[in-house]
């Protein structure tokens, strides 16, 4: 842009223009060089996971170059994918994440609609409050929640501690505030004329929401869904605190508690498990990167 302006303003000074463009080329080369360096830094651990997952235990403990696979084998994958334990963790994680995403959307979309469009007593305060709740870290709440659930179990006889469904109760505290917040942003950006037209045509509030707001703000809904899924898939502290039996564990905790036995690390299997555990968010990200980024930036820029 700037070079073009200078070109127009001083077409006779060819030399100057040439040096600018040479500077530009060098700036570009340096940019690519550093970007490559940073990309290497970013991709190093996942690549190393992949490299290790293709090695046999013998090759891992041999004193060979750790950055190369000399005898690639799929034995780690076969072992992990045929172990009932691992499949159980995967199944638990998938179930928890899908339920949490559903619960989150059912709570946050109507709430965001009400907060964005239907002013009522305390709605502005509530919107700010939702945002502040998002800032309260889970590391502050896990001990009181642990005691609360234990007390609830004693009082009603319904056990919550060490059951996978306890995660369905606690995960929404992490996902709902953020999803509500970004949905408020998306809903608020829809022109008022659209819902006024709908109301004039006799649509109820519910119809306005399902026929107008949800279709128009669909990118926002996808972004919120991805966020809720990623958070519930990756959460580590809550399952570590609330679940202990092998059959109730979710993937991250399961890999760490079962594959690490005492001081013996079976790195081939650990890396395979970690890679498979990282795969669902990575696959979603690969296909829906733009929604992912939209959700990420919407949360803070609208704050």
């Amino acid at each position: 842009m700037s070079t073009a302006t200078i070109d127009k303003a001083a077409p006779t000074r060819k030399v100057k223009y040439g040096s600018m463009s040479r500077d530009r080329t060098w700036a570009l080369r340096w940019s690519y060089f550093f970007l490559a360096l940073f990309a290497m830094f970013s991709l190093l651990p996942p690549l190393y996971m992949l490299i290790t997952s293709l090695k046999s235990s013998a090759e891992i403990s041999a004193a060979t170059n750790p950055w190369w696979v000399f005898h690639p084998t799929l034995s780690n994958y076969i072992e992990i994918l045929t172990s009932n334990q691992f499949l159980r963790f995967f199944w638990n994680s998938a179930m928890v994440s899908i339920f949490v995403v559903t619960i989150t959307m059912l709570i946050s979309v109507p709430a965001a609609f009400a907060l964005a469009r239907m002013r009522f007593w305390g709605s502005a305060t509530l919107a700010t409050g939702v945002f502040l709740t998002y800032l309260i870290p889970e590391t502050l709440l896990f001990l009181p929640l642990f005691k609360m659930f234990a007390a609830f179990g004693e009082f009603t006889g319904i056990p919550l501690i060490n059951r996978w469904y306890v995660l369905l109760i606690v995960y929404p505290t992490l996902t709902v505030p953020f999803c509500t917040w970004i949905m408020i942003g998306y809903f608020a950006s829809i022109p008022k004329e659209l819902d006024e037209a709908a109301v004039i045509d006799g649509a109820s509030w519910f119809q306005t929401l399902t026929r107008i707001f949800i279709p128009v703000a669909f990118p926002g809904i996808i972004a919120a869904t991805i966020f809720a899924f990623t958070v519930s898939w990756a959460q580590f502290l809550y399952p570590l605190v609330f679940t202990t039996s092998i059959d109730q564990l979710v993937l991250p905790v399961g890999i760490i508690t079962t594959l690490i036995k005492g001081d013996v690390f079976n790195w081939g299997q650990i890396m395979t498990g970690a890679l498979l555990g990282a795969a669902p968010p990575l696959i979603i990200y690969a296909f829906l990167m733009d929604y992912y980024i939209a959700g990420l930036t919407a949360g803070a820029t609208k704050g």
Partner: protein
Amino acid sequence: MVDVAFPPNRVAGAGGTRKRSSLRTALKRKSTTAFLMTLPLILLIVILVIYPAFFSLHLATLNKSMQRFVGLGNFEFLFKRDTFWLVVKQSCIFALTAVFFKALIGFIVAHFVHNIPAKGQRKWRGMLLVPWVIPPAMSTLAWLWLFDPSYSAFNYTLSFFGVGPIPWTGDAAWARFSVILVNIWVGAPFFMIMYLAALKSVPDQLYEAAAIDGANWWQRIWYVTLPMMRNIIAITTLFSLIVTFANFDIVRILTAGGPLDHTHIFATWAFRVGIEGSDVPLGASVSLFMLPILAIAAIFILRDINKRGNEA
């Protein structure tokens, strides 16, 4: 405008008995519907966030068996322990260093991505954001393996340069470095993406004007880019400071607080004391020390929102 649609309903409601109609009109009213729609959200926040937050204040005043009120006894006990002060120091070192470098690296990388032709930006951005997408618990395992003392890929590579084996997680200073490094690796892409979005919103004319005035690249950054990005830098730093102070996964998996409690931060020590040591009240007291940073953040954000309200 909106109320136009509702009189028919009120007329219909008037047909019934007095009591039922008033209930029905209440239900038809906009504010009632809105309140019902937000009710699940309110219940969730009150029962599972606000109540536990106050409950942890109460927990912190109980003794270990949770039967006796000890007032500030837990805090007195904490203040006398060296480990506690070690945790305070390490939490501050960890959070401040990590956030500073995350912001710096994010800023630099965002500039590089912004520099290259728009066509290739998507690809680079995609690669650079990968650390943020992988669940931190999983990627920290990969780092733990990279740091492994005997078969470490890092030490193997360094041995070619004549650098002796480094005890990445075994020595206090190196362990502190390692947890910070992993945290930077996970968090820098977030800053990069935020700053990139902010950079794209700076109008080109400002840079052209600066170039005409003879500003060099440093002056362009200092007088144009930074002032334009001030808000986004403030808010991302604040966010990241909270999240980093409250970090758990990385430290827990990489060092579990070791060696000799030198890498414990509030969250991991609260877990060690509260869950593993089953002294829940003491653990709650430890985790309460994350509140000051939260309060500061809340004040800043509320001020920002009020300011915006006045401008609008």
